[in-house]
């Protein structure tokens, strides 16, 4: 690793820490910096601030870090695996699967009645439905990927799952009440808040497993930069590395969608931003850099979304799209130099 990269990493880590502190200092209730630090390190008199920090803001900030870094990394894995600069964590149909699961629970209650006829759908049932949905799609994709030799075919199959989901959701919404539709739409906005520490622990467990698998894929990902035939000639087992990469992405993106909803653009935009800034395709540098960038951008997006000192909470998906879409446009305009 070059010295300039070491400096860049130190700077990124410092920025991340600053964004983290800034993120938990901002919110609808203004809490002075001294109390923020006090509650982080456990010596504080103001109980209200303590509760707000440890029960609300800290879990949200940690969620933001996991969501941002996780989506960034799974986007990076997919872009390299599919050699497609527009691939993201959800190209495998993971978010479609999750959406379908959630749609069936929320919207399906009107259609099927009886079993689902409770007026309010609990948070856990949505998490379970999203996990189940993305897990089933993942199984289907993995089954297909072991049969299909062509990596591009998997990409198309993922897209097809997306179309099927969209169709089922529109059928379901036709039969749903306005309230149910609203609840489904709200889930689609994405949300980083309202996670309990137990939920975060489960989230963290699955997320870390995915991240560890990604770290083990670094060497293979670099070989894949040369193309399938070269990678194979370098002794890489295409089948098993492809499996591990898809599995890692599914774990990370699946669990994020289950807990925070389908969060758009971060997974697509962060790897490109990182490549432009670090000017390399070497995954040994890219992977940690994407991790830090993703976390930073997500913390910033979340800080904006909560509109400091106001009671408003903008949908996180709107903010990420506002950040992400210009990046995509910028990339397309500069396409001649778009490398990956």
């Amino acid at each position: 690793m070059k010295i300039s990269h070491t400096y860049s990493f130190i700077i990124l880590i410092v920025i991340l820490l600053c964004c983290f502190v800034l993120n938990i200092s901002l919110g609808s209730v203004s809490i002075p910096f001294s109390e923020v630090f006090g509650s982080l390190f456990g010596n504080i008199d103001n109980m209200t601030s303590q509760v707000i920090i440890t029960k609300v803001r800290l879990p949200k900030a940690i969620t933001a870090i996991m969501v941002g870094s996780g989506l960034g990394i799974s986007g990076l894995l997919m872009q390299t695996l599919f050699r497609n600069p527009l691939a993201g964590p959800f190209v495998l149909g993971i978010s479609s699967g999750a959406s379908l699961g959630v749609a069936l629970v929320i919207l399906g209650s009107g259609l099927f009645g009886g079993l689902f006829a409770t007026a309010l759908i609990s948070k856990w049932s949505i998490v379970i439905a999203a996990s189940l949905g993305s897990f089933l799609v993942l199984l289907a994709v993995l089954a297909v990927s072991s049969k299909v030799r062509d990596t591009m075919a998997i990409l198309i199959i993922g897209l097809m799952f997306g179309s099927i989901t969209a169709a089922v959701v529109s059928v379901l919404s036709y039969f749903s009440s306005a309230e149910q539709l609203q609840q489904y739409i709200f889930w689609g906005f994405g949300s980083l808040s309202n996670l309990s520490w137990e939920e975060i622990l489960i989230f963290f467990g699955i997320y870390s497993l995915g991240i560890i698998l990604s770290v083990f894929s670094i060497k293979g990902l670099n070989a894949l930069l040369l193309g399938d035939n070269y990678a194979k000639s370098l002794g890489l087992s295409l089948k098993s590395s492809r499996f591990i990469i898809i599995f890692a992405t599914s774990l990370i993106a699946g669990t994020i969608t289950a807990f925070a909803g389908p969060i758009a653009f971060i997974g697509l935009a962060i790897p490109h931003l990182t490549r432009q800034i670090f000017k390399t395709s070497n995954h040994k540098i890219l992977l940690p850099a994407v991790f830090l960038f993703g976390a930073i951008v997500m913390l910033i997006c979340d800080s904006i979304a909560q509109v400091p000192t106001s009671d408003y909470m903008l949908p996180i998906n709107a903010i990420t799209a506002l950040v992400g879409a210009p990046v995509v446009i910028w990339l397309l305009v500069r396409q001649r130099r778009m490398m990956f």
Partner: protein
Amino acid sequence: MLQSKDNIILKVEDLAIGYNTKKVETVVASNINFELEKGQLIGLVGANGIGKSTLLRTLIKVQPALSGKILLNSKDLKSTSTIALAKQLSIVLTEPLLSKNLSVFELVVLGRHPYTNWIGNLSEDDLTIVNNALELVNISELKDEKCYELSDGQLQKVMIARALAQDTDVIVLDEPTTHLDMYHKAYILKLLQKLTKETGKTILFSSHEIDLAIQLCDTMIVMQKDKVVCNQPCRLITLGVFNSLFPKDLIVFDNTSGSFRVSK
């Protein structure tokens, strides 16, 4: 005769190549027999569509042989594992690089992939081999350039350096001279010849530069519709193999100069 047996690095016996989709078997070429010696430069020539690429793809195990045997270092290619093969055979293909955002050094380092640990850290030895490869190909000064900044000729040299860094007995190149101007065509082939002399590696390449190949190769494999001939270039000329390589209405082979002439 016995001595020359030890010298054989790649042996092909009754090989049939082609494609096997479902129940339909398309045979591109069959009855291929040849032996390649260590440290030689071997050119594979033949008309378009005769199956040069298919033969190379079969030799590097990208596609399976229809029948027959390929022995690399006297071991059947079929039973050689991917990782063991990676340490014996490296390739340079015509397909464009997917990512040109790597530096020349980073790309050549990828050649060390079969030897490095799980995360790809380089040992002192690895670094020496990589720097050696860069020097052999005369691109040490391009080390920190990005691949998208290179010309086609430079990029080809980088890909050859990457194959050298893989430190294999055999290097197979698929049409390494396409897209290059006349000077660079000669330069690349001359470079390959130098590498066989200096490193003792066996280098097999396919090419349409028959004139150059005749001048530079130790052995040539000529693919024709009904047969595949493998011999020294001067022997092939006396045997008149090149005369029947192409339809005679446009170009004819001139035995004295060893090159093709447009018929008037």
